[in-house]
C-alpha cells in the first residue's frame, strides 16, 4: 500500500512538472499581454506533434526532436502573437478569451483533419531503461521529464531575473505605460513572451507525448488545469506556480489512484473550491486582479 502511495506520488510530481511548464508559459502571457490564452493547449499539442514527426520522419533522436519542436513552436507562438493577439491587447478580457478559444478550436480541428485522431507515442528510446529503488519503478523517460523540467524552469527563472529582456518583461508586467516611457520596445517583448511560452508548451507536450500519448484533443484539459495552477499559485511568482503545479499533479494522481479514476479531472477543481472556502485570498496570498 505504501509503495503504491509512493509510486502514485512520484507520478503526481512528474505530472506536476508538466503542468508547471505549461502554467509558467500561460502565466507569462497573462502577466505581460493581459490575455487569457486558451490556445496555449494547442501550442502544447502541436509541439508534441512536431516532436513526433521529427522522430518518425526525420529519425531525429529524442533530445534533438525536443529542441526542434521547441524552436518551431517558439516561432509559431511569435506568429500568432503578431497576427491574432496583438490587435486585441487592451480590449475587454472576454474578447481575448473568446478569440483564443476560436483559435484553439481552429487549430485543434485542423490538427484533427491533418494528423487524424489515433493516439500515437513519441519514441524516446528511453522507455526500456528502468530504475528501481525502495521498491519504486521509474523509467528513464520519467526521470528525464523531471530533470528537463527543472533545467527549463531554472533557465526561465534566470532569464527573467538577469537578462535585459527579462527585466523588460517584468517592467511591462508591472506597468505597461511606464515601461514604454522608459524606452522598452513593448512589441518585441510581446513576441518574445509568446515565443517563450510556445517553447515551454512544446517541451511539455513532447514529454507528455513520450510518457503517454499524442492526440489532437490533448490540449484543452491541460490549459484549464494550468489556469487552476495559476489561480492557486498566484501571479508573477514562479515559486508559487511550481508549488501549485505539483499539488495539482499530486491531487490528480493520488485522487485518481485511491478514490476514483474516472473523476481524476475533477480533483483539481475540488481543490480550488476548497481553497475558495478556506483561503479566499489565495494559497500564497498573492495579488489578485
Amino acid at each position, binding site marked *: 500500500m505504501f509503495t503504491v502511495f509512493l509510486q502514485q506520488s512520484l507520478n503526481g510530481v512528474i505530472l506536476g512538472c508538466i503542468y508547471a511548464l505549461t502554467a509558467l508559459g500561460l502565466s507569462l502571457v497573462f502577466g505581460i499581454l493581459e490575455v487569457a490564452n486558451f490556445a496555449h493547449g494547442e501550442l502544447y499539442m502541436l509541439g508534441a506533434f512536431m516532436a513526433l514527426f521529427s522522430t518518425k520522419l526525420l529519425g531525429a533522436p529524442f533530445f534533438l526532436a525536443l529542441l526542434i519542436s521547441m524552436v518551431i513552436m517558439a516561432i509559431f507562438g511569435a506568429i500568432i502573437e503578431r497576427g491574432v493577439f496583438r490587435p*486585441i491587447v487592451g*480590449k*475587454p*478580457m472576454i474578447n481575448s478569451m*473568446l478569440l483564443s478559444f*476560436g483559435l484553439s*478550436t481552429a487549430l485543434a480541428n485542423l490538427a484533427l483533419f491533418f494528423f487524424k485522431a489515433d493516439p500515437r507515442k513519441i519514441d524516446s528510446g528511453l522507455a526500456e531503461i528502468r530504475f528501481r529503488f525502495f521498491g519504486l519503478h521509474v523509467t528513464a523517460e520519467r526521470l528525464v521529464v523531471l530533470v528537463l523540467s527543472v533545467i527549463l524552469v531554472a533557465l526561465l527563472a534566470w532569464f527573467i531575473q538577469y537578462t535585459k529582456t527579462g527585466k523588460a518583461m517584468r517592467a511591462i508586467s508591472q506597468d505597461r505605460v511606464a515601461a514604454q516611457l522608459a524606452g522598452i520596445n513593448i512589441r518585441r517583448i510581446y513576441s518574445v513572451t509568446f515565443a517563450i511560452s510556445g517553447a515551454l508548451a512544446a517541451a511539455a507536450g513532447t514529454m507528455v507525448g513520450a510518457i503517454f500519448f499524442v492526440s489532437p484533443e490533448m490540449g484543452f484539459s491541460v490549459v484549464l488545469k494550468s489556469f487552476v495552477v495559476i489561480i492557486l499559485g498566484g501571479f508573477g511568482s514562479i515559486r508559487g506556480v511550481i508549488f501549485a503545479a505539483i499539488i495539482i499533479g499530486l491531487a490528480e494522481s493520488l485522487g485518481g489512484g485511491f478514490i*476514483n479514476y474516472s473523476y481524476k479531472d475533477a480533483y483539481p*477543481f475540488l481543490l480550488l473550491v476548497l481553497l475558495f472556502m478556506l483561503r479566499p485570498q489565495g494559497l500564497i496570498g498573492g495579488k489578485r486582479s
Partner: protein
Amino acid sequence: MKKQVRLLVAALVLIGLLFIPKLFSMDYYMHMFVMSEIYTVLALSLALIVGFSGQVSMGHAAFYGIGAYVSALLSVNFGFSFWVTIWIAGIAAGVVSFMIGVLVLRLRGHFLAITTAFFGILVGLVFNNWTTLTNGPMGISGIPRPTPFHFAGFNMVVQTRAHYYYLGLAFAALVTFIVYRLINSRIGNALIAIRENEELARSIGIDAMAYKVFAFTVGGGLAGMAGSFYAHYILFISPVTFTVGESINILVMIIFGGMTTLFGPILGAVFLTVLPEFLRIAGSLRLVIYGVALVVFIIWMPLGVWGSLKSFWMGQRQASLQTARENPERL
C-alpha cells in the same frame, strides 16, 4: 424609441413569428427554429449574467444540463408531466447556481471564467460517470413528450414540430419579457452599476454580492428550464450536449449579437443556430471555419453586430470603442 412604439414593434414581430410554421413546412427548418428558441432563452439568461452584470461565466451549459437531466429523470422514472418538471428543473438549476454563485462570484474576470468552466467540466464528469442515475455516456432515452394540456376548455397537444415551435415561442417571449422587466428595474440598474464599476456601486450602498448572486441564480434557473424544454423536445439527452464547448457556444452567441442589449443575444442565438447548418458543406473542416470566423469577428467587431449597429446609429461608435479600449478590465 418611445415606449408605445417599442411595444407595438414587439407585438408586430411576435405576430409575424406566429406565421413561420405556415411559411416553412419542412421539418428540418422547423427544427432549426425550435432550436433557435431554446438558444434564445439560453442566450438571454447568460446575457443577464455576463452582459448586464459583467460576470463572465463559462459554465452555463452545466445549468442547462442539470435542468435537462432533472426533468428527464423525473418524467422517465416517476412519470411526472412536463408541465410540472419544467418548474422543478428550473428550481433545481437555480438552487445549484445559487450555491455555485455564492462560492465563486467573489472572484473576478479570468478567475471567475475559469472556475465556472471547471464547474462545467465537473458537472459533465458527473453526467458521464454516475451511471446508476444518469446512465453515463449512453444518455437517457424515451423521455415522454409534454402531456396534452387542458385549460379552461382549451385543449393543447404537443406532437409536431409546429406545436413545439409555438410552445417555444411562448417560452422565449416570456423569458424575453422577464429579462426586459428585470434590466429596466432597480435591480437592472444595480446590476449595470456593478458591471461598470463594482467599487463605486458598493460605495453607494449596492450589495454587489447579493445582486450578482441573484443574477446568477435567475440566469441558471432559466437555463435549467431551457434544458427541460430541450429534453422533452429531443426526447433523448446525453452528456455530449452539455459540455464546456456548448457554454462557450452560448457565450459566442451573446458576444456575436452584442451582449449589453436585449435584442443582441436573440439575434446571436438565431443567427448562430442557423448559420452553422450552412457550414455543413465544409464537412470536417466546419469547426476550423467556425474558429477562424470567431477570431476574425472578435478582431473586427468587438461590440457584436447589434452593439456595433446600435452605437453607429447613436453616433457614439468612436466614443464607446474608446471606453472599451480605456477600460480593459471592465469585463
